[in-house]
């Protein structure tokens, strides 16, 4: 194959591999924002903690990182549910209106960010940590990718599609969708709204946790790493539309591909490019591409 086609393929697949993680992170955050109405700035910290948890379980206890998905996922889910039941539920009771709740919950999530980051710093130290798992090359049409990236993409797509099916097909999923559209009416129709909101916050956190477990296979870990994924998630959910789960899924892949294209020219500009797209989008179409 000619060199240029290999390069394009390289960038495109690289973008998809990156996008899978972005999609998962953004879906989780969108669930927390779209249903539970919390723009959770500590989202990235759940990724970081789950990634460090996997690191410790693998290097110290010797548990397979993929097995960590079923260990860490539920733990983070429970933490998310508890956080919503205690902190965010209390905040919503105290807030006079929806706008006030939006502002106080953002600030509270910043508080969580600092707390979680500090605890991680105490537990794991400020140095970069990494481990090697499924780290061998796989050749796709002349471009070589490490196997763990492909595994990550597979799981990310599986989790995303699985969760979408859960929302679309199950009884609880229906309740969640109803609560997202109109919480008051949903509660009048017999949806236990507090339960659904806590559940959604938990699911959102769990997705961050799963993303963290997966992502720990391919990147070095550091207690300060979470924030950039929070930003990326916010960009993706604005790109895909606030509250739209499929929008976040597709938006994640779009941002991944954009990121790879920019990185191809100048890697140090990819974050700036994300923000530029994000801010232009906010000005031109704040509803996002898939927003209604």
């Amino acid at each position, binding site marked *: 194959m000619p060199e240029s086609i290999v390069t394009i393929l390289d960038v495109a697949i690289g973008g998809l591999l990156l996008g899978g993680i972005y999609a998962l992170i953004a879906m989780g955050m969108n669930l927390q924002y779209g249903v539970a109405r919390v723009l959770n700035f500590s989202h990235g910290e759940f990724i970081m903690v789950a990634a460090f948890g996997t690191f410790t379980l693998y290097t110290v206890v010797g548990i397979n990182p993929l097995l960590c998905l079923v260990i860490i996922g539920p733990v983070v889910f429970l933490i998310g549910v508890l956080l919503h039941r205690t902190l965010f539920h209390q905040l919503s009771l105290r807030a006079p209106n929806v706008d006030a709740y939006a502002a106080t919950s953002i600030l509270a999530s910043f508080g969580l960010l600092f*707390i979680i980051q500090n605890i991680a710093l105490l537990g794991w130290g400020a140095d970069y940590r990494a481990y090697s798992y499924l780290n061998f090359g796989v050749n796709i049409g002349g471009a070589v990718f490490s196997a763990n990236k492909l595994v990550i993409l597979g799981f990310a797509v599986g989790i995303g599609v699985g969760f979408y099916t859960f929302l679309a097909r199950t009884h609880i999923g229906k309740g969640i969708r109803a609560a997202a559209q109109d919480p008051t009416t949903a509660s009048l129709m017999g949806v236990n709204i507090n339960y659904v909101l806590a559940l959604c916050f938990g699911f959102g956190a769990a997705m961050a946790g799963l993303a963290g477990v997966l992502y720990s296979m391919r990147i070095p870990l550091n207690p300060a790493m979470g924030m950039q994924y929070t930003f990326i998630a916010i960009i993706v959910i604005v790109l895909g539309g606030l509250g739209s789960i499929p929008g976040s899924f597709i938006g994640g892949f779009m941002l991944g591909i954009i990121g790879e294209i920019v990185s191809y020219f100048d890697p140090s500009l990819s974050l700036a490019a994300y923000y530029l797209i994000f801010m232009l989008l906010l000005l031109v179409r704040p509803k996002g591409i898939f927003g209604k």
Partner: protein
Amino acid sequence: MDTARFTSKGFLVPGIINLVILIGLATLPLYGSLYNVVLITSIMMYAILTVSWVMFSGSSGYLSLATATFFGVGIYVSALLLPNTGAVLPLLVVVLIAGLGSSIVALGVGALTLRLRGIYFAVFTFGLVILVLELLNWWEHSVTGTRGRFVMLVDNDVIFYIMLVIFILSMLTTYLIRRSKFGLALQSIGENEEAAEHIGVNVTMVKVITFAISAFFMGATGAIWATKLTYIDPYVAFNVLYSFLPVLMAIFGGMGQIYGPVIGAVIFAYLQETFQTEFPYYYMLSFGVILIVAILYLPGGLVGLIQKAWRRRPGGRHADT
């Protein structure tokens, strides 16, 4: 919403207290130690950022996280015009230019974004900090090939006095805005923007102008703060913490009264200075816990708490209903 009423009877006591504090501050370099002068300079820096943040966000209800951008612009203006190799312009002129520069940035940003409501505005202003940081970083890295800049050394007392003047001006501006029709218009935007528009308030203009005025003080503070830092790079200048700390300090102190944010800033900045040196490993943790506790249990801030206690006191003034 509390509006401070200044009757002839209620004016005297606060006036005397203000005067005493002012004289105490103005003469501090004469009797205070170097440590105290530097500490109070940094406390005033936070107080200015908080007061000017409240000037816009406290009344209009728009959660701006752009403070670090305006502060950073000020720092960079100072670094460009007051390099350690020799000042291009006099210090005071640079401070003024930095303030105006930040105002111009705020005018542009405000005109573009103030139609964004609620969460979008907060997210946009926050993104702005990171965008400027990343672009500047890239610029220094790839284009100029430099990393960081050194700023001229300025005497600590001079920094202190300039900070004090900016602080007094920011307080005075807040006071004047609150007392004016302009301030009422701003207040009405915070209460209900559509209603404000219907009664004839030019909402866009009021918002953008206030945003620019508040940015002026942030930029001017940044310029003088840069001379205290002496070394700056994009990560120092555009640190997102400068966007959050003023919000936190304002909530902590309470935004209902004009002196609430100042009290919040003074206590918090002092705690921060001591925590950072005494318990560096738990600093962020305590910061987060205080933030959450303040949001949950201090809706009116410290000032609100004091007022509540004052009203509950037998014979104390009762709450207005």
